[in-house]
């Protein structure tokens, strides 16, 4: 069974602060996705990274896929209350649609 560990599990920060969420595995994935989930809703895809070392930016969010394709990070600059939610990483094996989800990071941004 492939496992994806996220850290930290919980994070509470003030508006304007920066933060980084980590997603680590001992398994290699062909691509990795990040989702955000708000209370009472299903996860929504933010980004997919497919190449080792790849960096993608989505406004104030920066996603990086590790060189060995075993880990990823999400960095948020100048966090805003609208960033509050559960962040999930998800590892994929090429050619298959089965996804292994990480354990999740619950982020709270306090105004």
């Amino acid at each position, binding site marked *: 069974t492939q496992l994806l560990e996220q850290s930290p599990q919980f994070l509470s920060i003030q508006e304007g602060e920066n933060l980084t969420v980590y997603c680590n595995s001992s398994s290699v994935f062909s691509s990795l996705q990040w989702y955000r989930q708000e209370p009472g*809703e299903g996860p929504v895809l933010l980004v997919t990274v497919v190449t080792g070392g790849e960096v993608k930016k989505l406004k104030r969010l920066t996603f990086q896929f590790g060189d060995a394709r075993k880990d990823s990070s999400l960095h948020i600059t100048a966090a805003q209350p609208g960033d509050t939610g559960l962040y999930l990483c998800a590892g994929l094996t*090429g050619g*298959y649609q089965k996804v*292994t*989800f990480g354990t999740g990071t619950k982020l709270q941004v306090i105004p």
Partner: protein
Amino acid sequence: DAGITQSPRYKITETGRQVTLMCHQTWSHSYMFWYRQDLGHGLRLIYYSAAADITDKGEVPDGYVVSRSKTENFPLTLESATRSQTSVYFCASSDPPTGYSNQPQHFGDGTRLSIL
């Protein structure tokens, strides 16, 4: 509007009872998935389906049954509910992978199931 709908949104039942969670999607996605979400475990795959009449087990299939007679529907049945199956259940759908490129999954809003 195209989308994925889960019903019911909330369900309370007793141990030993059979309960079916419904999932309907209007995108004509070939793939559909059922997950359960529990604190500390993230989302765990129960069953998935690559097309009508094709289903396969995920990580935690015991105690669950699925069927896919039509592309748009993917019901999940707990044949004899147990307290350990209390959870939030999410259905998702996606297009098939293209080569080694995976497609995003689109999730419903979940069914919160409590088993007393």
